[in-house]
């Protein structure tokens, strides 16, 4: 075998040159990856950016998942019990669910208006506090058929009112006031006013009792 030192050197140098070319290609690839994926470090004391949800689990199987839309808590049985964040409709929301996973309480912005609702064990809305379309506060209680039975609210003219309703959702009593005087009105099932006490529309104050045909049975003064 004819192998001089010079020939060996030439061969080794040739391999070295090839290796450098190969490494250069690899380095360029790394540079591309870095620029494609790198993110600037934040100004906070500690800032970590995750490209997928952060999940914290315990031995029972309960977990908390922090995603780009919020925080979801799942119990050991695998039921979602709490959500805080922006819901699937894009609404800021806090939801609490019972052990069966049924939503029982929710606080959120509905069409950008604040809303708080409580639901019974079969999913019926039974209590609601919110601002209405006029931005007036209201509290509504509904029965098991989701019929409104009691309401605290402001009327269209801005008067505060307490109202009671029958199971047909028709008004039976309202206790309200305007800037002149308060009044209490009681109605029967047909909607006829049977008792009025307080301020009348003409500005006088008094009370009267009527029968179902709207005949005044007694009036004072």
């Amino acid at each position, binding site marked *: 075998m004819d192998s001089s030192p010079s020939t060996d050197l030439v061969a080794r140098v040739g391999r070295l040159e090839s290796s*450098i070319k190969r*490494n250069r290609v690899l*380095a360029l690839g*790394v540079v591309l990856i*870095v620029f494609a*994926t*790198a*993110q*600037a470090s934040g100004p906070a*004391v*500690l800032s*970590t950016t*995750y*490209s997928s949800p*952060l*999940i*914290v689990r*315990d031995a029972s199987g*309960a977990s*908390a998942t922090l995603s780009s839309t919020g*925080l979801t*808590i799942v119990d050991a049985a695998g039921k979602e*019990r*709490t959500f805080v964040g922006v819901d699937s409709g894009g609404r800021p929301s*806090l939801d*609490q669910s*019972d*052990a069966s996973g049924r939503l*029982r*309480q929710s606080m959120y912005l509905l069409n950008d208006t604040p809303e*708080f609702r*409580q*639901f*019974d*064990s*079969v999913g*019926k809305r*039974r*209590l609601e506090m919110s601002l209405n379309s006029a931005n007036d506060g209201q*509290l509504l209680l509904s*029965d*098991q058929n989701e019929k409104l039975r*009691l309401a605290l609210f402001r009327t269209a003219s801005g008067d505060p009112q*307490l109202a*009671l309703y*029958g199971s047909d959702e028709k008004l*039976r*009593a309202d*206790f309200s006031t305007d800037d002149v005087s308060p009044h*209490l009105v*009681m*109605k*029967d*099932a047909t909607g006829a006013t*049977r*008792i009025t006490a307080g301020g009348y529309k003409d500005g006088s104050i008094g009370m009267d*009792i009527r029968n*179902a045909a709207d005949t005044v*049975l*007694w009036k004072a003064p």
Partner: protein
Amino acid sequence: MDGLLSDRIARLENVARRERAIAIGLLALLMATGQAPAPTSSGPVIITSSTSSATLDSRGLTVRDHSRELLFAGLDSSGKPSLDLSDSAGRLRESMYLLAGNPILRDFDAAGKRRAEVFLAGDSGNGEFLIFDAAEVRRLALFHGSSGLPEFALYGSDAKVRAYLSTDDGMPYLGMNDNGGATRLVMGAYTGGRAGMDVRDSAGKALWSQPK
């Protein structure tokens, strides 16, 4: 020939040094800006600043101001979904949670007394709104009564009802009681579907009534 080789080797050595420096720089850049993989952790994740900290564990999120817990959202120590807001002294002031599976929202005063709440009753699922005084005695209530009728009630500091306005599907009625519990004024529905009102003495005897 040896001189030519020597030059080529010298050039290669320079290139190797330069590329090594580039590699180290890239590595440093990756360490500084690279994204962490999506982790699954068995321990809490804690984010701190000089004034507060947030701890995310499998039960939820807790935000503390120094040593005081200010906010908790998640499952409490009893496994109830809960949102708790505490004041700057660390006292619980508002809590929204499921009590025995039923929803409740409570507000507490600075002494820790329950002062207002809305909830659904456990047995019926009926909604209630209650206001309490500083002694935690119920003074005002909006609720469905035992027979499911909507009712507005006012109470004395002895927690006994003084006034109530309610309705069934027929007609509403208003009652006013004295501190002995006797009804002294009634207005609204009477038996038989008629409407009327009366004033009574403390023994329950009608002193005045209409219509005659």
